[in-house]
Each structure stands twice: as C-alpha cells, then as structure tokens.
C-alpha cells in the first residue's frame, strides 16, 4: 500500500487553561475523499482542523501530509506547506475592501515574493487560472466587484476560489455553511463536493448539520470532548452512534462545553 495522503497520529492540544481540546486523535486519509468531522460545540473540531495547518500550534503528535511531518517545520517550511493547504472559513474571511479578483489572487501569496505580489505580477497563467476559477464557482463577471458588496453565498464562493487558487493538495473547510441559509448551504456544499471530486484531493470539513454531512461526505469522523469516538461510513451513523457523539437527547445534558477560540 502507498503512503496515506494525510496521516494524523496522537494529535493533542492543551490550551493554557488546562483544558484538553484534542486528546490523542489519530486517523488517516488514504485516498481522495471528503471527510466530515461532526460533534457538538467545543468537541475540538475546529482545533483539529487548525492544528493541521498550525493556525493553532499542536501540543504533541504528528500530522503528515504526503509524508512530510508538519509540526516540526521551520517558519519557511511551514509557509511552503501552508500554500499547499487550502482553507475555507465560516465567516469567509475575505478582505472586504479588496475586489473579488484581488481576494482570489491572495491565494497565490505563498508562492511569490512580497515585491511581486505588490505589483500583482503573478503571470498570465495564474490570471487565466483565476478567471477560470471564478467561472467555476459561478462568479464570472464579478472580478472587479468589491468583496463587501457580495451576499454571504457569493462571498463563500470567492473563499472557495481563493483556496483553489493555491492549487492545494488538501482542503480544510471550517464550518463553511454555518453562516448561510439552508438553501445556500446546499448549493455551497454541492460546489465544494464538486471541486473536491474534480481535483481528486482529500478534504476535511467541520460541519454542524448532520444531515448535510451524511448527504455529501464519503466518510464521517465523530468527536466528543477532544476524542475521536466515531470513524466510518455515513450510512453506519445510527441513532446510537449519534448519541455517542452528541451525548444523546437526555433531560440532564452535560454542562455547556467551553467555547473554543475561533
């Protein structure tokens, strides 16, 4: 068997407060697939995704993307690694005063020098790629609109184009539909599902909506209190398994988990 695309082993994160957000999480993604991470707020979903590209520094454990272990990388090594990992955020995180095209091109920042990026000399090939991506996400003709003039769904489409502009080898999606209405959520999930299949890359998505996760993901990982408690096919996600993950619908719910830092 070949090396897994993404292999996470013993990944642990302690925040300074003594709270263990991630507790020795291990799993591997062997082939291009969309993996949904579910669990209640504070279960460690967001920490898990952020420990992969080190927006949150893991306390211990390893994260191997195509064989390279990410946690020990130097600053420069981390930069080179991050440019191959696309990320899509709940709040879109576009630069609002910049245009759609400028936002999409920020996906190339990791590949060029500061001086090159200042003058937008990304090369014809990249500009063509950017136009093609705008077309793919359904925003052709929007390139000179300012990001703050767009609707939520449109902003997330720009977010997807920006991530794809990196030509990523892995896509991380952090609650990409949680700020959108149900209809738009489905459209965005369809789009994300489509590009992940086309680009044949592995992707990890945090998602609150279990129905949406089951409809679009190839595989589901369930988290509870920082631990991995389910890993399997969406079809195997029975009522009992869901109760394991979410703690069931009892009349005596566990105390509200502490908020994770965003």
């Amino acid at each position, binding site marked *: 068997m070949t090396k897994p695309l993404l292999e996470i082993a013993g990944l642990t994160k302690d925040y300074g407060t003594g709270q263990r957000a991630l507790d020795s999480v291990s799993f591997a993604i062997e082939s291009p697939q969309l993996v949904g991470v579910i669990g209640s707020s504070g279960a460690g979903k967001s920490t898990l995704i952020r420990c992969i590209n080190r927006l949150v520094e893991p306390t211990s454990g390893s994260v191997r993307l195509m064989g390279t272990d990410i946690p020990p990388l130097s600053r420069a090594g*981390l*930069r080179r690694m991050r440019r191959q990992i696309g990320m899509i955020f709940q709040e879109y*995180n576009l630069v*609002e*005063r910049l245009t759609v095209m400028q936002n999409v091109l920020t996906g190339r*920042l990791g590949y060029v020098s500061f001086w090159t990026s*200042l003058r937008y000399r990304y090369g014809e090939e990249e500009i063509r790629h950017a136009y093609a991506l705008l077309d793919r996400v359904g925003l052709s003709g929007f390139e000179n609109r300012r990001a703050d003039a767009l609707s939520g769904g449109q902003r997330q489409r720009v977010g997807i184009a920006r991530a794809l502009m990196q030509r990523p080898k892995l896509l991380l999606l952090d609650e990409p539909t949680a700020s959108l209405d149900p209809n738009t959520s489905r459209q965005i999930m369809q789009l994300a599902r489509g590009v992940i299949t086309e680009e044949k890359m592995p992707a990890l998505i945090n998602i609150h909506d279990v129905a949406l996760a089951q409809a679009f993901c190839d595989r589901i990982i369930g988290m509870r209190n920082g631990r991995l408690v389910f890993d399997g096919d969406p079809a195997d996600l029975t009522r009992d398994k869901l109760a394991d993950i979410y703690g069931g619908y009892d009349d005596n719910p566990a105390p509200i988990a502490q908020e994770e830092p965003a």
Partner: protein
Amino acid sequence: MSELSPTTSPRWRPPTIFGSHQLRTIFLVAVALYLVWSLSTLQFDSQRVLRGFVRAGDIFARMFPPDFSRSKILINGMVESIQIAIVSTVLGIIIAVPIGICAARNLAPRPVYLAARGLIVLGRTFHELIIAIFFVKMFGFGPLAGVLTLSYGSFSFVAKMLAEDIENMKMGPVEALRATGAGFLQVVWFAVMPQVLVRQIGILIYRLDSNLRHSTIIGVVGAGGIGQTLSAAFSKYDYDFACAILICIAALVALGEFSSDHIRRRLR
C-alpha cells in the same frame, strides 16, 4: 423562570458605575465643594481683572488697522510654517508606521509590542512646547528645531492611532492569508492595510492640519516659522503688525480645516 417575589421593590433605577447611588451623591457633592474651595484659594483679584480689560482695550485699539506693509517678512514666515508642517508630518509618518505595527498586540510578539508601546508612551510624555525648547537648545533657533519637534509629536500620535486601529480590525482575513502561506509583509499589506487605510488617511490629514496650527506656536520659543515673527512683533509692542500675522494664521488654519474636512468626507 423565577417568579417576581412580592418583596421585590417595584422601584428600579439603572445601576451606576459608582457601585451605589449614595456613593455617587457623595462624589458629586465633593467635586462641587472642591471647585468652590479652589476658586477661593486662587485669590482672584477683581481689580486686577478689571485693569486687564482696560489694557486689552488699549491693545486692540493699537492693533487696528492691521499693518500688512511688511508683507515680505509675513509671507516668508507663513511659507516656513507650512514647510515645517508638511515636512514634519511626512517624517513623522515614516517613523510611525513601523512602530505602530510593532505596537499592535494582535500582530507583534510580546517583547516587540512592549518596546514599541514604551516608545510611544515616552513620546507622549511631554508636550510639544517642552520638546521644542529642548531642540532649540540643541540645534539653535530656526526651523530645524521646529521640524524635529513636530515630527516627534506626529510620530507618537500617528503610531498610537495606527496601533489601536490595527488592534480593532477583524482577525479573520489575517488568519486566512496566513493560511495561504503569505509572509508577514504580505499579511500586513493585503489583510491589515486595506482594513485600516481609510481611517488612517483621515488621521494623517488631521495631523497635518494640527501640525499647521502647532507650527505657528512653536515659533514662540524660537523654533522657526511665523510664530517666531509673531513673538518678535509682540515683544516690540508692534501690535498692528502682530494683528496682521494673527489674521494670516487664522486664515491658514481655517483653510486647513476646510480642506481636511472636504478630503475626509470624500474618503468615506
């Protein structure tokens, strides 16, 4: 949830920052008493105040008509003041931008942040007039001392405003750009700068405007510009010339106020 108990008083007043309403009353009474007491100890002499009014009438009478005949000195002074204002604003900004970025808690590592903040606090400790006296002693009379003084004042003001603006920006775009592998300068240019630029330009124009006003004052202690001319005119009892200078300063400040208002409105 909980029922309103019959013992709960229906009288309700908003909570105060003093903790209790009695404490607030005591505080306000104490302030009033202190004001009365300090006025009585400062020994305002009503005779002296009256004589001052009489003298003011005399000065005003000698100010009119204003004497614009020495226009060459007047224009030279004004031009020098404007130059001092512009050069010191630009110099101040050049120093302020890197220090301001270093003084933003959400961008800079802790030791850098503390050092930059310390520098800004140091810069804001003394009023520009005191700094001007110091620079005049160091470099002698003239516009060099003025430029240095106002650059120094602009630097600490602009750096502080910039740092605060950066601390209030949204971190989302910064995080997103870091996640693409962007370097520090790229993050600053593409995620921080667009978020703070409009407000900063407003602040820079405000600072240019206030440097224009300050540049007319610091001349009084010998740091060049129209203020030096004004101070000389007053000490020679040359009131009609002084009046001409004051009119020019007022016109310049009004012009600055008007144009900075205009530019700031267009930036929205």
